[in-house]
């Protein structure tokens, strides 16, 4: 199944994380209890936009157990710098503030924080804060439409920004992104077929089962800030905390032990967490804030919520000649990173696994008085959601089966290396192979017959395909991760790195790579992450890079250390290191089974007996390797969904779901399939159930799990997998896999529903596809994409 099948790499090794987690002995942020810690609760804005005309905290202060109540006047002026390692200090950034000052900009914005002996008492205090507002007209797409928001100069989300438009492209976006493309206009004017459609995806959210949270204390005697955080990136928290209060990175110690999911939401510290950090520093206190689910849903960061209009030109045979695309995003008031737009990635990745010919992309992002955007598993995934729907819509418009239309446009092996219309270069992707494998596994041709037969009995079956290229970026701090590796005096192997696993099984998978490459028993590898005091600088876990970038660094560090072990062993065994092998921690001379030395004995020589070594060999057994990853790494997959729509109730049942993917060498196939499955089910949630809704006044309406519906085990099919293994050129041959399930599943599911509803001519271009929407689609006026 895998190109490498070693003792550990390529094996479904059971996870070392599990023993503590299945017995209730994980250590999540809320499980840490420091003595004397004060608990934080926030007063949050109940209106979307308005002036704060009165804020009186005296009644809250009188509550026994309330230590203090902090407002913007206490904290905001002390904030120094806000930029993030991953984004850099030069990126444009909308206004930031720790607590709302003078005005409020979305329902849920934090206005004041109560510090008390327990969360119960802190919430008592919050209820007694007297606050009055002068409400203003909220800036909302739900109210004024996208163009209305963009054009509104009288009502600004951020008066300091001067416009509700956060970003407009074209601009300097990256390789191959043109400012205009006259050649495309010529293609659109002359092509045999030109099809235009607009696809929308609604607001849905990361929703890790563990919400956000932080413990912070400032030790004034050691001038040291200690933080335990639910984060994907401990070093990002460290830098953000240090910059915010104006101390050095080295004065901040951040630990993240077990983290209960993130999916992007925990990539950067939340504004509330920064407020807690600042308060702990100013007061010299130990503070703790654990976000509750209501806070997490209304203010923890939102995602998706965008549309994309595509115009596709093809020749008579269905070959794509050119594509024009325009993307629009509602990024809320305070997005988590930069201006919060994913447009430059959407534009760059939109061609996916196809030749697009002439291409032009434009976009606009607007601020609104809603919760700001955060990264969510494939933040740019609108490119796949729209492109793969457009493949089906275009195929339908020109009278071709969607599978055949994909076959005519997919990148084939003989085209590699393939340069996309946006300048990306694919070298080891296999989109044709995954397309064919998925079609075969799902029995595409046989399905069409089954579907026709079912329709004669009034049953609505549908099939949907979706293919994509999963990009992972290797530039900036995301492209240069380090693994430190040492062998201790007792022969145990100690690895540290800057990853921040929050469910990805990194302790297991990187230990597999190290044990395999070094030649030791995996149980001898002690792996530590999530602690800035011991780990080298890193960017955490996010962006589907852990296998390729950290895994590559782990492999290269292991090679260095293995070479050193063999060099020392060669001196002891009086052999050439070229004649030595190490397996399970024992070095042996090839062909001479009696001549061996254990790793512990090598370590003893390295640390204590080094005088027998030549000057050229440095004592000790520790190495570091910081990898330089390619700017882009790519994997690919094709998903296929089969659904049945109940024409009476509108219920959709996913009958089959399968994934054919090529993520290169799999370190741990069990973990790979687990990552895919989790992502796919997030897509099922997003397409059919999850929907965060605001009313026309900016009030959130889906503020609990009774209204914001997550899929349960009763809603998901058994997912089937096909693996194609084409190693990447990076060390180990690993490729990205973490985000693809969530990126590629929505379009496959939507396409399947559209296919099922073909007899009704339903125009399926937005979600969620809940029972009501399905019934409306069946009953509604038939209209399809315009075809010229």
């Amino acid at each position, binding site marked *: 199944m895998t190109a490498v099948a070693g003792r550990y790499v390529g094996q479904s090794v059971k996870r070392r994380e599990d023993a503590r987690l299945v*017995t*209730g002995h994980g250590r*999540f942020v809320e499980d840490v209890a420091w003595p004397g810690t004060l608990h934080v609760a926030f007063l949050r804005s109940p209106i979307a936009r308005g002036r704060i005309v009165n804020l009186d905290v005296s009644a809250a202060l009188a509550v026994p157990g309330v230590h203090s109540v902090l407002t913007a006047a206490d904290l905001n002026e002390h904030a120094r710098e806000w930029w993030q390692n991953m984004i850099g200090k030069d990126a444009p950034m909308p206004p930031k503030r720790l607590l709302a000052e003078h005005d409020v900009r979305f329902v849920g914005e934090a206005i004041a924080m109560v510090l008390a002996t327990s969360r119960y008492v802190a919430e008592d205090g919050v209820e007694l804060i007297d606050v009055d507002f002068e409400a203003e007209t909220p800036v909302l797409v739900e109210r004024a439409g996208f163009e209305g928001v963009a054009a509104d100069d009288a009502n600004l989300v951020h008066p300091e920004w001067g416009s509700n438009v956060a970003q407009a492209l074209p601009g300097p976006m990256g390789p191959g992104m043109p400012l205009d493309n006259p050649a495309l206009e010529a293609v659109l004017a002359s092509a045999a077929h030109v099809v235009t459609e607009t696809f929308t995806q609604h607001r849905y959210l990361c929703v890790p089962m563990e919400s956000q949270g932080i413990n912070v204390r400032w030790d004034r005697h050691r001038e040291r800030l200690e933080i335990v955080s639910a984060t994907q990136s401990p070093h990002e928290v460290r830098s953000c905390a240090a910059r915010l209060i104006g101390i050095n990175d080295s004065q901040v110690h951040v630990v993240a032990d077990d983290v209960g999911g993130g999916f992007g939401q925990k990539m950067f510290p939340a504004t509330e967490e920064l407020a807690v950090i600042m308060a702990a520093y100013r007061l010299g206190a130990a503070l703790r804030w654990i976000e509750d*689910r209501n806070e997490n849903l209304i203010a923890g960061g939102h995602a998706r919520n965008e549309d994309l209009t595509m115009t596709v030109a093809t020749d008579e045979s269905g070959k794509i000649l050119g594509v024009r695309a325009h993307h629009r995003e509602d990024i809320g008031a305070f997005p988590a990173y930069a201006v919060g737009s994913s447009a430059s990635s959407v534009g760059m990745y939109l061609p996916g696994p196809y030749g697009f010919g002439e291409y032009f992309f434009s976009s606009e992002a607007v601020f609104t008085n809603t919760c700001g955007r955060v990264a969510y598993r494939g933040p740019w995934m609108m490119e796949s959601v729209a492109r793969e729907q457009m493949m089906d819509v275009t195929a339908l418009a020109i009278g071709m089966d969607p599978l055949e239309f994909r076959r005519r446009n997919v990148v084939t092996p003989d085209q590699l290396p393939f340069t996309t219309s946006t300048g990306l270069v694919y070298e080891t992707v296999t989109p044709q192979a995954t397309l064919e494998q998925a079609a075969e596994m799902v029995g595409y041709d046989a399905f069409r017959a089954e579907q026709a037969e079912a329709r004669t009995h009034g049953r609505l079956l549908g099939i949907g395909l979706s293919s994509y290229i999963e990009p992972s970026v290797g530039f900036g701090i995301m492209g240069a991760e380090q693994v430190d590796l040492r062998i201790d005096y007792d022969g145990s192997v100690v690895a540290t790195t800057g990853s921040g696993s929050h469910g990805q099984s990194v302790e297991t998978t990187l230990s597999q790579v190290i044990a395999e490459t070094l030649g030791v028993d995996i149980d001898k590898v002690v792996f530590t992450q999530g602690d800035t005091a011991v780990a080298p600088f890193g960017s955490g876990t996010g962006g589907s890079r852990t296998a390729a970038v950290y895994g590559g660094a782990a492999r290269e560090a292991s090679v260095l250390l293995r070479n050193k072990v063999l060099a020392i062993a060669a001196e002891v065994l009086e052999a050439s290191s070229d004649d030595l092998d190490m397996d399970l921690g024992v070095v042996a001379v090839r062909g001479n089974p009696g001549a061996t030395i254990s790793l512990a004995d090598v370590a003893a020589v390295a640390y204590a007996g080094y005088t027998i070594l030549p000057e050229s060999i440095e004592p000790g057994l520790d190495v570091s390797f910081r990898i330089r990853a390619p700017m882009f790494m790519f994997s690919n997959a094709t998903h296929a969904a089969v659904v049945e729509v109940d024409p009476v109730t509108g219920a959709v049942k996913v009958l089959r779901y399968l994934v054919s993917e090529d993520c290169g060498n799999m370190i741990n196939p069990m973990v790979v399939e687990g990552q895919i*499955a989790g992502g796919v089910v997030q897509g099922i949630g997003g397409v059919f159930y999850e929907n965060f809704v605001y009313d026309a006044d900016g009030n959130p309406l889906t503020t*609990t799990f009774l209204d914001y519906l997550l899929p349960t085990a009763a809603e*998901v099919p058994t997912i089937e997998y096909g693996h194609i293994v084409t190693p990447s050129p990076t060390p180990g041959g690993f490729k990205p896999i973490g985000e693809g399930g969530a990126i590629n599943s929505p379009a496959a599911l939507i396409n399947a529903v559209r296919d099922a509803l073909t007899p009704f001519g339903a125009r399926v271009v937005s979600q969620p596809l809940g029972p009501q929407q399905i019934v409306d689609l069946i009953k509604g006026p038939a209209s399809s994409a315009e075809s010229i």
Partner: protein
Amino acid sequence: MSEHILHLTVNGEAQHVLVEGRKTLADMLRDDLRLTGTHLGCEHGVCGACTVLVDGAAVRSCLMFAVQAHGSQVTTIEGIADADGGLSAVQSAFRECHGLQCGFCTPGFIVSIESFLDAHPDPSDEDIREGISGNLCRCTGYQGIIKAVRLAAETRAATPQDMSAPDDAVSDARVGA
């Protein structure tokens, strides 16, 4: 605030706790007894992460006041493995089947499934999906969890001794179920 002295048995040990009337069972277990394996994912009774056994019945400890557990036998995730740390059939199956990723929802699932399998020792796939649909997981897509329930049911059927609880208190609690 009114405070109450609460007597109960948790994982086989007698406990006496002074709690406010408004404190939830989940917060008492976590804050006062430091049994932090019981997790809070929503605090409104939907996600199931806080599930514990009270007198053998699986309950949402976020929806129950601590004082309501007065005189009860409570089993938390920390009481599922045996005293020597041997994993239950359900716990072993979760590891075997990749039934967890981040592990935050896992204690609630495991406690719920222990109770579910007591009542449904030979569940169909549909029973399993229905039986665990009161617990939310955001990482696994439920694939490994469903497999784990199936495996645990098989393991329990093949080794009846696994049906016996780690200690008398839990055993009593299950008899009460």
